[in-house]
């Protein structure tokens, strides 16, 4: 059974595709600057490119999560979305706030707080926008015939993501306090409630693709999100080692953040075992690739590469170096970018009626983007380790070290080109599907 209001999801996914493309452009600007070719400096200085690159990531992922929710909630609750017009208004305002923020970054209109650069007046618009979105989702869920665990976990993730945006809006005179609460937003999002969103979407996809009994999948979903919170909440401590708070965080943060990979390991084992257990084989191979892919790559990128520098003894040397960029890229790609691409790959055939289940372009998109991103991660890792050794152990000047590692950014750009080719293939497939139709949803 499908619902006509699910169509709105398509436009959120389209916005995601557009912003993802732009994000990649700004990534290249930064990579060239790191390699010594900062040719755009007078127009787009590094700090502009950086703010645009990370904020576009956040906005396209959020747009993808929202699209996922608009697709999943009607189907799970067995109820049309309560107000479709409002959902379109919410989409347009989200896009407008995003565009204004990003243009503003080119004219020194921002607040320099990593990941939360959106200026406060625009923050309030974000709040109104997200409240509208949550209202639509929660009322639909409330009026629906069913309240499944999958829908509840997904909605809970979205609700807490909204709530946790607020500590990032408070002004502090003290940089340590500022940093302390900034992590309540950033860490508790990506290593907390966003994993609920990811888990909810993953559970939905596994139910649909593998045909395993919902009760079994949802039971393990609880265990995984339980592991996420038990390790992730106190794992926030790994951001508190060296910002001006006490030594207790070295112990608490070290122990609990070292447990964070367990949740991702759970997610990977969960996806693989459900796939093997499932008797029904869904014909949508591309969606299956992305679904299993996100579970596995998130374990490597977010889980293992995070563990690699989360202990205080190691982090003392790697904190604030390119090693963080290494972990950040594969973590966000594996856990959040891939889950959004998975739900899009699953939803598009149902929304448009075109069944591009097993195309060459679709498979190329999966493999090129993944191999490209792994290559980029390795390049960042090599540059990062060299930087740590030369700067933090040998004591060379920052600028001299950066000159030594420029060559790694050449490799990074080669791998990024491969990655981009994959994303271009994905977007070509997206365009080939065309727009959603009522007939497709009624079929």
């Amino acid at each position, binding site marked *: 059974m499908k619902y006509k209001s699910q169509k709105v999801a398509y436009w959120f996914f389209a916005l995601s595709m557009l912003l993802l493309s732009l994000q990649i452009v700004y990534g290249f600007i930064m990579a060239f600057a790191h390699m010594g070719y900062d040719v755009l400096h007078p127009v787009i200085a590094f700090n502009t490119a950086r703010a645009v690159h990370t904020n576009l990531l956040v906005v396209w992922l959020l747009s993808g999560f929202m699209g996922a929710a608009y697709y999943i909630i009607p189907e799970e609750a067995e109820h049309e979305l309560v107000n479709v017009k409002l959902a379109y208004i919410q989409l347009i305002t989200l896009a407008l706030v995003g565009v204004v923020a990003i243009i503003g970054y080119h004219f020194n209109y921002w607040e320099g707080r*990593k990941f939360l650069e959106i200026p406060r007046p625009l923050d309030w618009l974000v709040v109104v926008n997200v409240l509208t979105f949550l209202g639509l989702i929660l009322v639909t869920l409330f009026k629906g015939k069913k309240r499944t665990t999958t829908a509840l976990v997904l909605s809970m993730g979205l609700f807490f993501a909204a709530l946790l945006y607020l500590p990032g809006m408070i002004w502090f005179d003290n940089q340590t306090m500022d940093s302390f609460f900034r992590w309540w937003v950033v860490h508790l999002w990506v290593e907390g409630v966003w994993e609920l969103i990811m888990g909810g979407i993953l559970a939905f996809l596994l139910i649909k693709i593998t045909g395993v009994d919902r009760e079994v999948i949802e039971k393990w979903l609880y265990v995984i999100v339980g592991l996420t*919170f*038990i390790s992730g909440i106190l794992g926030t401590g790994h951001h508190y*080692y060296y910002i001006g*708070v*006490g030594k207790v965080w070295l112990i608490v943060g070290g122990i*609990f953040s070292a447990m964070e990979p367990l949740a991702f390991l759970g997610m990977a084992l969960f996806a693989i075992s459900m796939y093997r257990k499932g008797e029904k084989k869904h014909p949508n191979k591309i969606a299956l690739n992305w679904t299993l892919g996100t579970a596995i790559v998130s374990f490597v990128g977010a889980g293992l590469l995070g563990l690699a520098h989360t202990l205080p003894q190691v982090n003392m040397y790697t904190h604030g170096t390119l090693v963080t960029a290494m972990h950040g890229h594969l973590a966000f790609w594996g856990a959040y970018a891939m889950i959004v691409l998975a739900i899009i790959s699953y939803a598009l055939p149902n929304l448009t009626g075109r069944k591009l289940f097993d195309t060459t372009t679709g498979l190329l998109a999966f493999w090129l983007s993944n191999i490209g991103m792994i290559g980029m991660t390795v390049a960042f890792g090599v540059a990062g380790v060299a930087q740590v050794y030369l700067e933090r152990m040998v*004591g060379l000047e920052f600028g001299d070290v950066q000159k030594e590692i420029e060559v790694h950014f050449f490799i990074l750009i080669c791998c990024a080109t491969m990655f981009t080719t994959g994303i271009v293939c994905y977007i070509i497939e997206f365009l080939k599907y065309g727009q959603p139709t009522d007939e497709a949803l009624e079929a």
Partner: protein
Amino acid sequence: MLSKLQARAFFLGGTIVTFGIFLGLSWNSLSNEVPKRTHEENLSPQVIHGKEIWESNNCMGCHTILGEGAYYAPELTKVYDRRGEGYIKAALMSKTPWSPRGRQMVAYAMTEQDANDVVAFLKWIGEVDLNGFPPKPQYKK
């Protein structure tokens, strides 16, 4: 074997307990540790204005401070000790992009007063107790 109800209890129970501990530890840090370790009594209007300038220009978009930010330009937590006031002011007040080793900084052409405030902010942050960060290079001759 684990039932769905038990799995839910594990999720809710685990979350509530760890979140409780997290709030307790945060309360302790913010009320007992931060005022002493950051020397809150030294947060003069000048330092606070320096932080405002720091944020409004997104300095964290290239530099790191407390090890947080971007990795394009040097870590600045201890820059006051390392370079001294004159050097920092020259970089901030320069009308052409400051580029000591090839990499260009945005030319902010700050007034002397603004530059002094940023220096005050950087001096304050250099005195915060950071549990030994940044580490002393072990092999430096």
